């Protein structure tokens, strides 16, 4: 008896559905992901309202990535694998390609670069001139490096050495320094620390031509500096206060033999993942829309799904394969 009633109810419900398919379809879960044949529109999760929600969600996530370092410094950061040896090699390759002489790694310029990087972390600035007015030349002269010409390039948040040099080459003023025939020597500092709450790596490149040509670094000096740099990764450390009467400029830079700290969350990977997840999700729904509409012969009153999909694929591909982190100054 019960089964007969149930059967009757079921058949009535099916009858109602057949009479009003549009109203039933609205509640079908599958149409969150697939187009609505009756209403001739896209999946609910592709509606204009849903896309606005994705935009707001991405803004909120970007906001969290901005606020989090202020609350918990050092959690977010930029993972990097930059080495002085590679920076020197890439720099000299670019110079050789331009028909210029190779630059020799100088210990005084290297020390000056280290002091500059540490000063930037200590006073939390990102500039050629410090907030107290200290110029790059002050660091160089502080190492008793008497120069005719000198220059400075800065970089931060980069992942690798090649990108640092490529970024300098893409900027006319930095390229001018890198390919200047006025320089004979170079110094690098690759220093890890926390800048504005983000764990990052600062790269300082200092160029010079000594007043006395005989002072140009020897191959032995270059090898010594390279050895020192490769055996002890420089890191920002708490420095002992300078003794009174000893000028800070002539003090030795601090080389702390510790491995570079990796941030708990790499900002570059995190932001790329967020964009790829949202872009990939919407892209997948668009692809489903194209396929389902074609197989079911659904003609919707909407914009061109294939055009949206094409643009989205291009954007996600650009994010993963073209965009690189890092700023030069």
């Amino acid at each position, binding site marked *: 008896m019960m089964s007969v009633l149930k059967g009757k109810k079921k058949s009535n419900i099916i009858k109602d559905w057949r009479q009003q398919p549009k109203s039933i379809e609205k509640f079908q879960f599958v149409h969150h992901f697939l187009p609505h044949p009756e209403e001739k529109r896209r999946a609910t999760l592709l509606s*204009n309202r849903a*896309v*606005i929600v*994705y*935009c707001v969600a*991405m*803004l909120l*996530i*970007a906001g969290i*990535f*901005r606020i989090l370092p202020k609350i918990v410094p050092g959690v977010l950061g930029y993972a990097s694998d930059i080495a002085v040896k590679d920076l020197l090699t890439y720099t000299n390759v670019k110079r050789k390609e331009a028909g210029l002489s190779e630059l020799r790694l100088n210990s005084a310029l290297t020390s000056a670069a280290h002091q500059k990087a540490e000063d930037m972390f200590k006073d939390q600035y990102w500039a050629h001139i410090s907030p107290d007015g200290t110029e790059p030349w002050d660091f160089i002269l502080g190492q008793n490096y008497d120069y005719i010409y000198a220059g400075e390039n800065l970089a931060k*948040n980069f992942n690798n050495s090649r*990108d640092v040099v*490529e*970024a300098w080459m*893409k*900027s006319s003023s930095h390229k001018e320094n890198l390919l200047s025939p006025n320089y004979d020597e170079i110094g690098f500092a690759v220093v890890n620390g926390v800048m504005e709450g983000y764990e990052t790596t600062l790269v300082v490149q200092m160029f010079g031509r000594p007043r006395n040509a005989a002072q140009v670094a020897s191959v032995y000096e270059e090898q010594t500096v390279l050895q020192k740099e490769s055996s002890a990764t420089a890191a920002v450390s708490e420095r002992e206060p300078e003794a009174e009467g000893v000028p800070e400029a002539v003090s030795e830079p601090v080389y702390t033999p510790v491995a570079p700290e990796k941030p708990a969350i790499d*900002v*570059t990977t995190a*932001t*790329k993942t*967020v*964009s790829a997840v*949202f*872009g990939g999700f*919407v892209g997948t729904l668009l692809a489903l829309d194209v396929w389902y509409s074609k197989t079911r012969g659904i003609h919707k*009153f*909407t*914009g*061109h799904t294939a*055009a*949206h999909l*094409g*643009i*989205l694929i*291009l*954007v*996600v591909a*650009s*994010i993963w394969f*073209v*965009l*690189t*982190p*890092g*700023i*030069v100054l």
Partner: protein
Amino acid sequence: MKDKSDTHLVEYAVLATLAVIISLLFYYFRYNHGVLIFLSGVSSLAYIIWGVLHHALEGRLTKFIAAEYIVFGTLVFFLMYTVLNF
């Protein structure tokens, strides 16, 4: 009918050309985030304009379709901006 498909072809060719130009500019300026944010804005705007003009020329432009291109253009911009902002 032939004329209409020819017009479509031209419009899609314009979109494809824009996409190629913007991709090349993106690659060239890949180390300059300021320029890339600007390019993202320009490309999103170009896509919105293309969509609106395309549907207007087809004679099927509605407020809903215009809004759709605006929200998709905005989504594309935010996808890029989220990465470029850091």
